[in-house]
């Protein structure tokens, strides 16, 4: 299947989905699909550092959660315009990525995984102890962000806005990965020693990649705050970092569609098994079937779902 066709099919499904659901009187699924799109963006941002940059960040929830909290806190303080709160969310997430990355990228391997995890947990406890903004209980948003002239409380408008942003982000990533910068990032993943030996200042490239990824995660965070109308410390918890990582692994590490595909499949599986329609009373234990499927994918499709469908092995 050629790339343009695949992209076209994905795009067609994404555009038609709310209309079909509306016609079928299943409007609930529009909101569910919006959540998937937001996680697709967050997972794509993680795939940039993890899959393409070879930097196994186990603290990506920090940037996701920071973006969400900025929108929550600004709304709590009365600033609801997305022209202010979203750029602020992106900027703060990027800044957090700059600081965390600047320190973490001096380490490698397991140490890098552990130090990114540690930083994310530190941020988690910062927000837990932030009593002014709800502490443990988090913060409810009075309404969705404003500033576009249409009410984003309308699920259709909200869905299409998120979809448009996801498309823009994926296109930017697509350009980035084919650019000079993208080639260098992949070269460093392949062989850091040699990348240095042909004259690249490896640290600077990795740090910038980390910041770009953090900024995108921050935008996804701003969106999830609007989506759920609530921000809480759980958004920054390491389990959230793990969920994003599972999405990337499931979808395909270092595959362009890895993040989005992983988000769709994981969230759809969760929805399927945690609802009572399929498993009845056993739906309480939905993690078990989801876990078994994850295990099967990792064993039989080590390149992830997107990798299994790609022609060219990598």
């Amino acid at each position, binding site marked *: 299947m050629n790339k343009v066709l695949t992209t076209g099919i994905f795009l067609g499904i994404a555009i038609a989905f709310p209309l079909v659901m509306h016609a079928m009187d299943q409007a609930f699924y529009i909101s569910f699909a919006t959540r998937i799109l937001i996680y697709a963006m967050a997972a794509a941002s993680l795939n940039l550092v993890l899959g393409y940059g070879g930097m196994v960040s186990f603290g990506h929830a920090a940037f996701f959660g920071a973006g969400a909290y900025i929108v929550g806190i600004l709304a709590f303080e009365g600033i609801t315009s997305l022209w202010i709160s979203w750029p602020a969310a992106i900027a703060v997430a990027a800044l957090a990525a700059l600081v965390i990355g600047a320190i973490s990228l001096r380490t490698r391997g397991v140490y890098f995984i552990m130090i990114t995890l540690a930083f994310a947990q530190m941020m988690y406890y910062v927000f837990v102890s932030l009593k002014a903004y709800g502490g443990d209980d988090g913060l409810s948003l009075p309404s969705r962000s404003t500033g576009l002239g249409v009410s984003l409380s309308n699920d259709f408008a909200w869905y299409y806005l998120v979809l448009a942003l996801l498309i823009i982000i994926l296109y930017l990533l697509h350009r980035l990965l084919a*650019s*000079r910068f*993208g080639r260098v990032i992949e*070269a460093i993943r392949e*062989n850091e020693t*040699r990348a240095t*030996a*042909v*004259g*690249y200042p490896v640290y600077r490239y990795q740090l910038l990649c980390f910041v770009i990824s953090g900024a995108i995660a921050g935008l996804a965070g701003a969106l999830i705050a609007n989506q759920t109308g609530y921000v809480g410390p759980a958004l920054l918890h390491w389990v959230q970092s793990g969920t994003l990582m599972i999405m990337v692994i499931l979808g395909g590490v270092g595959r362009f569609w890895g993040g989005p595909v992983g988000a769709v499949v994981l969230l759809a599986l969760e929805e399927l098994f945690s609802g009572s329609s399929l498993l009845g009373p056993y739906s309480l234990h939905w993690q078990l079937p989801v876990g078994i499927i994850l295990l099967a994918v990792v064993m039989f499709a080590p390149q992830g779902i997107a990798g299994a469908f790609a022609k060219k092995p990598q």
Partner: protein
Amino acid sequence: MLSLKNLSKRFGGVVAVDSVSLDVAAGEVHALIGPNGAGKTTLIHQISGSLPCDEGQITFQGVDLTKAKPHSRVRAGLARSYQITSIFRRFTVLDNLALAVQARSGTSFSFWKPVAREKALFDEARSIAAQVGLSGKVDATAATLAHGEQRSLEVALALATRPKLVLLDEPMAGMGPEESNRMIGLIGRIRAQVAVLLVEHDMDAVFRLADRISVMVNGRLIATDAPERIRMNAEVRKAYLGDELAA
């Protein structure tokens, strides 16, 4: 061109490089020989910047590079190859070389324009591939190349940075006689444009190529001289060459 003054490197109590002073002149092939464990590769690591110097000074074309970062040394014209092949294994040969060319042509903090459209990069990568005899393999993934071809790519990556001096750490390692001959031919051809500091165990290659030879034993340089005089040097014969040349 390259000048080392009293360079030292200790690992704990072991002195790997012991106050080494050495000059490589422009246009020269300077061979560095010595038994295993003499500290040759450690010295190369120090010159390329992957290991810091405990003592001493490195100047290259009049500039003090003792504390310079490895990538800035490459930009200054000091490239290296590795004893153990170090290439971008999942990239094609052409992409390997284009990446090295890219490093010295314009900024790589460029995020929008597809690199595939930069014809100049790939043209130059092709000409470097031709120079090392890899023209027929440009579209092959580096990992699929034969050992000798990977060694050629290793050297080509260093040459692609367009260095003024190249440090070649055992370029013939693990090569058969025919491949070695090809590598000797390659080094013979590049010497017109670039000075070479050659670490090599293949004495045939060393004596065919070198203008001068330095002999390193237990971290110290015991002699630097023209090949025919190194052959005659009693201390060198005793310490290292002995049997091989007596035959």
